[in-house]
């Protein structure tokens, strides 16, 4: 498997001289299976430069897996050029949305309303298929398997485990560690904590034996407390998770849009100083980063 990062920024694209080393595009990860099947995790603005590289290899079959439908994870989708070229097949997978009570098919028709985008969904020329996923049910993509895992974010967020010939990686999408909504002296605290502990048991089981974990690390440890409930984790959360599950490598992503490259390296170094022996290789995600598994 080969994993390539095309967008590592959270919330909003952040181009400019301050972010040129790590990149300003929002979330998009390309995964190529051993047989070269194309899996794309999230369709933030990073999917646009990825699309440019695909134009030389048409026709293509792209299997896009959306972690959740917040803008920074879908905004590049209408700019995924293979959608407009006959002969390509684009399969879009994602979660059922509880609030709108619609499947992942809404991801295109919401974005391609005529007031907001000049081309209508009906005018796409590729074969477009939608598959609303069931949590825990694996999807086969050629020689690879993609398994959705329900994580913790303000909308249902699916993390994806991609496995191929004995190697595996997991991308969290946006995820915040679970916290107890009851203070310790509340009678409901223990019961709620037991439910959280159960969720962790489920998570650790789903994330066993990973060669690579790509994890939401939006915040520093100090930034996190006032942002509890916003749906993102910290560098320290991610390192602890990688240690707990025994991941071989950890890539930190979803960088804060206001964080310059220098600041990003500084806060990362600070976090690493708190974990002198993380037990795995830990690195910052950047556009163009390629990992062979």
């Amino acid at each position, binding site marked *: 498997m080969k994993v390539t990062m095309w967008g590592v920024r959270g919330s909003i694209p952040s181009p400019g001289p301050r972010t040129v080393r790590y990149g300003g595009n929002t979330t998009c990860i390309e995964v190529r299976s051993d047989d070269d099947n194309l899996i794309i995790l999230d369709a933030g603005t990073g999917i646009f430069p990825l699309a440019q590289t695909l134009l030389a290899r048409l026709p293509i079959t792209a299997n896009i897996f959306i972690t959740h439908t917040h803008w920074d994870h879908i905004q590049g989708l209408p700019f995924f050029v293979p959608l407009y070229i006959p002969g390509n097949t684009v399969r879009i997978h994602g979660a059922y949305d509880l609030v709108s009570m619609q499947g992942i098919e809404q991801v295109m028709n919401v974005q391609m309303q005529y007031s907001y985008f000049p081309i209508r969904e009906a005018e796409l020329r590729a074969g477009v298929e939608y598959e609303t996923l069931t*949590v825990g049910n694996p999807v086969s993509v050629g020689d690879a398997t993609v398994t959705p895992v329900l994580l913790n974010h303000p909308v249902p967020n699916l993390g994806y485990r991609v496995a191929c010939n004995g190697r595996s990686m997991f991308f969290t999408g946006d995820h915040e560690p679970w916290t107890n909504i009851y203070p310790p002296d509340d009678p409901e605290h223990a019961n709620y904590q037991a439910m959280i502990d159960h*969720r962790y048991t489920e998570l650790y089981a789903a994330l066993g034996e990973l060669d690579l974990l790509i994890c939401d690390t939006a915040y520093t440890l100090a930034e996190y407390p006032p942002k509890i409930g916003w749906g993102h984790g910290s560098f320290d959360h991610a390192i602890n998770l990688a240690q707990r599950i025994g991941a071989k490598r950890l890539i930190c992503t979803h960088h804060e849009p206001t964080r310059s490259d220098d600041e990003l390296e500084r806060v990362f170094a600070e976090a690493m100083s708190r974990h002198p022996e993380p037990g795995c290789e830990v690195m910052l995600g950047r556009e163009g980063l390629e990992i062979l598994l």
Partner: protein
Amino acid sequence: MPQLTLELERKLTTAVERMPAFPKSVQVILEMTRDINCLPRNLVGVIEKDPVMTIKILRVINSAYYGLPNKITSVGQSVVYLGINTIKNLALSFAAVGILPRFNTTGFDIQRYLLHSLSVASIARLLCEKHARAEADPGDCYIAGLLHDFGKVVFAQFMVGEFMKALAITVDCGKPLYEAEIEVIGADHAFVGALLAKKWKFAEPLVNCIRDHHATDAAPSAMLDCLRMADAICRKLAFGDSGNPWREVELASLPTRFGENIETVITALGDLQKIVNDAQAFAQIGTEK
């Protein structure tokens, strides 16, 4: 065996999806959610007092898309899986449907119904905590109490003529309401409530409790015992009104695990006034003209 046509079953299922919630929870949720930092535990505290909101949340979280290995049986557990913001927005979407009117044309008083359901829920939880902790989950007993009579609201909202007739038979002939419902509708509120709960893939023990809460010959379980005793206590002490008054003849069929007789069980539970006061505050009894 009660009979319900497939068409009626379909009608009731879709009707409940459009069912408005109770006035107090709608009002409090609209107020609370104006503050982006509203406390999650306060939000849960409101939602889990409203049978309609609770049902709608359990329905979506237990839907096939989430393929959860174990059934979700409480609002708190739903928050752990979906996150508080999703639950908040779900509650807001339920609130946007409107509010249940206090009285509809059947004359069924939903405020007194809610007072009954909340009191049964809290007392069922208390009974479980005191007597059956090892066999059942107190939170599950609470939900069973909250939802056991849900079928009545469905009848009152969507089978107005038939439910009016059943209520009249209860008053005129002194028959239990569930018998009158079977006579008029062909199925009682317990059957319809359980049918919907099963359709929405609620946990089996909860479905069984809703179905069997009037069935004296049902297979006993700790959860069902807590529910039936709590229901009897609330009807005996007239905590709210489920349209089905207490009858001394029911004494013989009550579970015996809680004490010698219903009076000793009530005494052993201690002061129940706080439970009633909390339920009254939520059900708004006496505040509406």
